[in-house]
């Protein structure tokens, strides 16, 4: 029994070290003065300075962020509808087919999604003249398509945890379906919508392959720029960029973690108070 526990925790420790080691090395070497990324030559922040002077990286980052915001918003809207359909609509025509369409983008290799969407856009442009050019708009459509699948799964799983009688009670009290959705369902699944939005934002910001296929000249996203840099070898400014991203993500996760922990603690205290007052 003890041996097994020891084994499990050792495996966990090694696994986490495996996950975090590389990230840690990125951070450490971003402060390396040497150009030869892995040879330590003293502490320096010079690569951060160079990164901030790199116009190409900055404009690509700005483009990526704009795309990601639009993508996340579209994906949350469509994904919520899809999640509602899956969780609340019981049977409808072609439900199995619909489920297939939703789960497909979750696992389909990026190259397949990328090439097929590009060929679609080319064919459409030939046939109906839209999209006239490829760039931000086509990247947004492509990203929204696979992000909505993720949102749908998150929303559906949250909705299945929301008691249906909650919505029935609202309807029983005189609220029409649309009103029920906005006053009851939406507030109750809000955490899933926030999670879905952030997830879509990250996925969009992170995608290289699909964007490479469907983007046009002059619209290079941040991953495309990074890729062209690191393809040729290690690049100290990329380490600096990675450190900034890791910093932002860690900060966001820690803050939301602390907030959630506090809310949960207050909730537990409330429940205990209520029990005590009731004389249990």
């Amino acid at each position, binding site marked *: 029994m003890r041996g097994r526990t020891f084994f499990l925790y050792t495996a966990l420790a090694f696994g986490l070290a495996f996950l975090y080691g590389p990230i840690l090395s990125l951070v450490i070497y971003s402060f390396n003065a040497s150009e030869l990324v892995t040879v330590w030559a003293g502490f320096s922040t010079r690569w951060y300075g160079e990164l901030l002077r790199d116009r190409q990286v900055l404009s690509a980052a700005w483009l990526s962020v704009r795309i990601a915001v639009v993508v996340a918003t579209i994906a949350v809207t469509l994904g919520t509808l899809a999640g509602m359909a899956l969780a609340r609509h019981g049977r409808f025509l072609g439900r199995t087919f619909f489920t297939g369409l939703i789960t497909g983008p979750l696992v389909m290799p990026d190259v397949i999604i990328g090439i097929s969407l590009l060929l679609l856009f080319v064919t459409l442009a030939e046939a109906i003249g839209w999209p006239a050019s490829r760039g931000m708009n086509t990247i947004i459509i492509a990203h929204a398509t696979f992000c909505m699948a993720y949102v749908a799964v998150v929303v559906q799983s949250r909705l299945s945890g929301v*008691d249906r*009688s*909650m919505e*029935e*009670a*609202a*309807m*029983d*009290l*005189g*609220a*029409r379906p649309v*009103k029920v959705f906005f*006053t*009851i369902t939406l*507030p*109750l699944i809000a955490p899933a919508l926030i999670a879905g939005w952030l997830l879509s934002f990250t996925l969009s910001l992170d995608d290289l392959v699909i964007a490479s296929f469907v983007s046009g000249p002059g619209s290079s996203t941040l991953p495309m720029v990074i890729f062209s840099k690191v393809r040729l070898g290690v690049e100290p400014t990329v380490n600096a960029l990675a450190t900034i991203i890791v910093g932002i993500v860690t900060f966001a996760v820690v803050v939301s973690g602390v907030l959630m922990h506090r809310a949960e603690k207050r*909730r537990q205290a*409330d*429940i205990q*108070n*209520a*029990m005590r*007052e*009731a004389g*249990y």
Partner: protein
Amino acid sequence: MPETLRARPEKHQPWLDASLRPYIHIDAVTKQFGEFRAVDRTTLEIHRGELFCLLGASGCGKTTLLRMLAGFEHPTSGRILIDGQDMTGVPAYDRPVNMMFQNYALFPHMSVEQNVAYGLKQDGVRKPELKQRVGEALEMVQLGPWAKRKPHQLSGGQRQRVALARSLVKRPKVLLLDEPLAALDKKLRERTQFELMNIQEELGVTFVVVTHDQEEAMTLSTRMAVMERGQVVQVGTPSEIYEFPATRFTADFIGSINLIEGRVKRVEAAGVLVAAPQLGCDLEVTGATQVREGQSVCVAIRPEKIAVAPNAEGAGPEEGAPNAVRGGARNSVRGTVRDVAYLGDSSVFRVDVGEGFLIEVTQPNLLRSLERKVDWDDAVVLTWRADAGLILTE
């Protein structure tokens, strides 16, 4: 016992008045879910001001029937009238009924006050009136001081009362309650039962309650319907259903009962004589029954209507039970005690009356004593009045 606690005036029995139009008329309603028929051609008439219970085991169709009244399900055939209005095609949000859900379904993101106000807001009730009515509703369930709390800050009993206030604040014509007390613990449940009855009497709203708990149904209801496999088996007051069950199913479902198979031997004006091979003797049953000689029937006797006494040598009844119907006589059977269960207020005995056929007997423990007058393996004699039993043919 519950009957005597009733403060309801004896004459309040609108179902006996043929000139009154029923308030809720469930007319030959059937609900089909795919292959499964949840409710099967059910007809029920419920009167204004009644506290009507739908009683049955899980899956008997009682909840589906309630949900059709609320408008969450729609009948496959048949129709439902409430106060003379056909509810067919009327969506849940337009019906003059409100529902109290089994798990209360309180909106977790709203305070007690907002929960109660939700329904009034949907009707466009203006602020001053809204405030006043919410205040009154919370007053009624004694939750005024808790108005600003969120549901998770309340105890189970308080949540139940919020749910009640929320569903009553719109002054519905009918209040539907789905297992209203199931989530409460036993002590609180008993207290709440009476609260619920008082509120119902005060407001005069018609209550339709779904429950699987027969004790709850007996305590609460003016009348109740026993349901089985989508059909109503019997409708009546609690005492009618307990004392005069129409079928074996009802008899067995409500309380405990001894069912003894037999064949009618003789029919007379005072009653009938039934040959009971399981007991090896004949039983006398008086009271109105329509049976013919030779018919197979079932004699049903409630355990508390049988007396048990030690079978002292020579003091027992003569061998061979009665062979004639003598009005007001007692039936008696010899047996051996197989099981004794001491329940505090009463004791339950299982008595083997021959070839392993067990008869259950309940005796109140009238005297304070640690000794048992009747114990395991004792030879006993069971006696009951001829009018204690009931002949069942279905």
